């Protein structure tokens, strides 16, 4: 294996003779990272093209067999409830386009890194990411025949307010240099946060009868072990090459932990509120996949190089019992402008929330839902009649609270070139002030709507520009999905399933 790998990857490299090396690889110096010996890059997988394609083809074969079986047997009817698919709408709109962007940038690394080892690993990952994009689209397109919210995810990713959160996160990484991208996506996203981001989605699928998503998830996650290894090798390689790299890498870890962590806010509410059958609470997932595995394991190992846990990690830990509640309360009141639906958590759901969040749910959030219950009784339904203030960095509505006070919204303000910029947290403010020139360019959906760049001044204008149709968003109860689901399950004659009548 070792000899084959040497012969088929590293030995295919050559030294340029009539062009300067810095002209061949012009992007690996400006970030200040010093590399003395590219051959020190270790790739424990020792993959070669033939072995790679053989196993990837096998993974695809297994997945597509499941997809066919599920489609042919009307498997969508065996889901726990149509509302479960809100989690998948969010995934297709928010995450799948990121896989494609990852494909693009790893292709860039496969061209631009000086060493053949990391170039080949980046090439494999680039192809993996394309495979993930395709398998996710193929898996979820099956639901598009029967349910709302799946039909315009690509355009929505570029336009819709809540999708600017994952989009701007990845754009931030794409517009960084190759080494920062490696730490941003290869390490922080693919290693530090990957289990926290993906395992809850896949376990949620498994618990709610979504066999195809579970299978694409596991298929993708099997590539993830290689991606995690690439991320970890990248960081160790940079740290071992030169001591001057350590503070640069530490600052990137500080930045990208917080950027990625803010994106996982969408996962937090998904776990605690969107799944009809719960898997585990966000708090539990955070403690296992982040606190135990990363702080208790990874950072103990990295301490050898002088690397410390991310700068604002304590703020993240401090909000693990409030995060999902605040985020869902926000999505609940803005889902009239979203391509997914939300609904009032019923008595069972609230009991589960109180049991899993004994310190916070009854005290801080139940009173809000009680007030909403009275509002609903009086014929109301809480939908905001306007636009929220957004964080200049993470682009999430400024819904987060002070680290030591869950009843006071956190407002941070910085001034750059005489203009005020607000951020939602110490982490986002620190990121803004480190590179203000970058973040002043943020395409903030609220500001763009007010500048007249999003289809027009009214809500229907903007929704039309988003490509959101009747039945995509709003309240779940009484929605098109809810009505169809009930009629498909109550009728003795199922021959009309999937038809509009």
């Amino acid at each position: 294996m070792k000899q084959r790998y040497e012969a088929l990857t590293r030995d295919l490299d050559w030294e340029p003779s009539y062009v300067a090396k810095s002209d061949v690889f012009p992007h690996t110096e400006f970030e200040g990272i010093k590399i003395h010996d590219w051959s020190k890059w270790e790739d424990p997988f020792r993959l070669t093209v033939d072995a790679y394609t053989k196993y990837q083809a096998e993974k695809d074969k297994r997945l597509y067999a499941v997809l066919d079986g599920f489609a042919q047997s009307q498997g969508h009817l065996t889901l726990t409830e149509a509302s479960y698919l809100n989690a998948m709408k969010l995934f297709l709109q928010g995450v799948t386009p990121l896989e494609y962007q990852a494909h693009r940038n790893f292709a860039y690394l496969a061209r631009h890194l000086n060493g053949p080892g990391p170039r080949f690993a980046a090439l494999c990952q680039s192809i993996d990411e394309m495979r993930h994009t395709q398998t996710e689209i193929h898996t979820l397109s099956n639901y598009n025949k029967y349910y709302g919210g799946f039909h315009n995810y690509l355009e929505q990713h570029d336009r819709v307010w809540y999708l600017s959160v994952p989009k701007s996160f990845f754009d931030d990484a794409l517009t960084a240099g190759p080494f920062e991208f490696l730490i941003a996506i290869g390490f922080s996203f693919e290693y530090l946060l990957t289990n926290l981001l993906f395992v809850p989605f896949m376990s949620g699928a498994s618990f709610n009868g979504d066999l195809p998503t579970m299978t694409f998830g596991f298929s993708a996650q099997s590539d993830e072990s290689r991606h995690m290894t690439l991320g970890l090798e990248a960081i160790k390689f940079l740290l071992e090459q030169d001591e001057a790299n350590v503070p640069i890498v530490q600052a990137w870890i500080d930045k990208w932990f917080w950027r990625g962590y803010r994106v996982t806010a969408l996962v937090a509410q998904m776990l605690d509120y969107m799944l009809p059958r719960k898997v585990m609470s966000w708090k539990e997932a955070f403690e296992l996949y982040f606190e135990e595995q990363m702080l208790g394991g990874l950072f103990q190992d990295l301490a050898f190089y002088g690397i410390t846990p991310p700068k604002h990690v304590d703020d993240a830990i401090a909000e693990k019992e409030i995060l999902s509640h605040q985020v869902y309360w926000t999505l609940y009141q803005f889902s009239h402008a979203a391509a997914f639906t939300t609904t009032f958590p019923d008595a069972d759901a609230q009991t589960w929330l109180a049991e899993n969040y004994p310190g916070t749910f009854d005290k801080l959030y139940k009173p809000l839902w009680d007030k909403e219950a009275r509002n609903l009784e009086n014929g109301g339904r809480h939908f905001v009649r306007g636009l929220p203030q957004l964080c200049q960095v993470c682009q999430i509505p400024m819904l987060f609270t002070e680290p030591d006070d869950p009843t006071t919204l956190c407002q941070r303000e910085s001034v750059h070139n005489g203009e005020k910029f607000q951020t939602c947290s110490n982490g986002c403010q620190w990121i803004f002030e480190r590179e203000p020139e970058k973040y002043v360019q943020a395409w903030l959906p609220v500001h763009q709507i007010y500048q007249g760049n999003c289809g027009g001044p009214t809500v229907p204008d903007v929704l039309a520009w988003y490509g959101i149709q009747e039945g995509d968003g709003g309240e779940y109860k009484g929605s098109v999905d809810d009505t169809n689901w009930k009629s498909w399950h109550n009728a003795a004659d199922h021959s009309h399933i999937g038809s509009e009548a």
Partner: protein
Amino acid sequence: MTVRSIGAYDFPSRSRQELYGDDQLVHLWFQENPWFCASACFRAPKAMTWGDFWNALVVPFAEEDPDFDPEARRVFTLHGAQFEPRDDQTLEEIGVEHKDVIGMRVLV
């Protein structure tokens, strides 16, 4: 610390005031009221009076809260200091600048 880049890196803000003509963005923070998950963002003319700002923008937004009482006594803050707006004052006269956050709290 600035951006490290392969060339000159100097781009205008995508939210700068001039993009809004004679208007500006104004944030209103409903303090001690978690019904509204985040502060509201309005686009308002600098020359808009407080009375118009209140009646045309704030009230239609805020009355979605079933407990909203437009007559309640309130404390307003701007740039860290309290202020008492008069209905005939313009936002500019009050000192509200582009993307400012106005704090608003109901007195119990």
